[in-house]
């Protein structure tokens, strides 16, 4: 019988311990309110929605084709949307093409908001019942989607778009969109 201490037998619990440490440590800094979008790599869902300004004008998913663009989900009842609005105006002034989706809101209030604060959107969709929002998996406004010229969703950002988020996260992806 060899009674030589076997090194791996002593290292095994240490290994398991270290794996648990790494796993739990990562858990400390993960945000459970951030969800992966189920729609990354998929085309924007089909829809027919009224224009915010002109109820007779209808838009469908074809407006997302032709060039890379942002889809911004917003509402007047959403304080964070107010916070990010100035930055969206700046992006629009810089030539970024942004489609606005007014989500579960009141048409008059929404138009007044855009009149007062400026309108960064090339197209404004009016989603009264939140049905396109539901198809997109929107769980909290504001949300911003990066969409390539084929109309395929490449990234979703939940929360406000500010200089830090744009420079660090969104712009690098947006620049690479085809």
């Amino acid at each position, binding site marked *: *019988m060899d009674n030589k201490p076997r090194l791996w037998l002593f290292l095994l619990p240490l290994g398991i311990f270290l794996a648990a440490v790494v796993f739990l440590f990562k858990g400390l800094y993960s945000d459970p309110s951030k969800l992966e979008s*189920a729609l990354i790599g998929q085309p924007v869902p089909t829809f027919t929605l009224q224009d915010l300004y002109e109820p007779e004008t209808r838009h469908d998913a074809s407006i997302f084709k032709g060039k890379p663009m942002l889809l911004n989900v917003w509402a007047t009842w959403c304080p964070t949307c107010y916070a990010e609005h100035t930055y969206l105006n700046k992006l629009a002034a810089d030539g970024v093409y942004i489609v606005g989706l007014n989500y579960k809101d009141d048409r008059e209030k929404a138009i007044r908001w855009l009149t007062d604060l400026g309108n960064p959107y090339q197209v404004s969709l009016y989603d009264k019942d939140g049905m396109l929002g539901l198809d997109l998996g929107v*769980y*909290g406004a504001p949300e911003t989607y990066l969409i390539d010229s084929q109309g395929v969703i490449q990234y979703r950002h939940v929360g406000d778009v500010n200089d830090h988020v744009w420079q660090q996260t969104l712009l690098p992806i947006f620049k690479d969109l085809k």
Partner: protein
Amino acid sequence: MRIITLLLISLMSSAGLAAIQVYEFDSQEQEVLYQQLTKELRCPKCQNQNIADSNAPLAQDLRQKAYELVKEGKNREQVVDYMAARFGNFVTYDPPMTPATIFLWLGPLFFVLGGLAVLVFRTRKNAALAEKPVMDPAEQARLERILNGDKD
């Protein structure tokens, strides 16, 4: 006193009514399915509440959508797939087996098998010890001599 009681009752009833949406179903099965779905679908906005318990506007929308789908005759799996296609597997409290969740199924098995392996290993070791003579032949002979009363 009676007025206060009446006032209290009216307050209670209005509060109760506000939280309840009335849905009409075609059959008992549909109603049972709807109840089951609202219990096992998770509200994406709120942390750890199912859509039956949550009063968030999003949970109301999801209840409405679940109701419509059930009413259309969709089964449980179809409704869950519909929600998961939009909100990801987070939306169900009964997540499917994927590479990311495989440990949930195999982890316990791994520990049981590990425990069994340790058990088998130790039993074998003990059995081997029991079979092996404790003393070598010379010592054994000496012991027998002592036991038989012989002197060294």
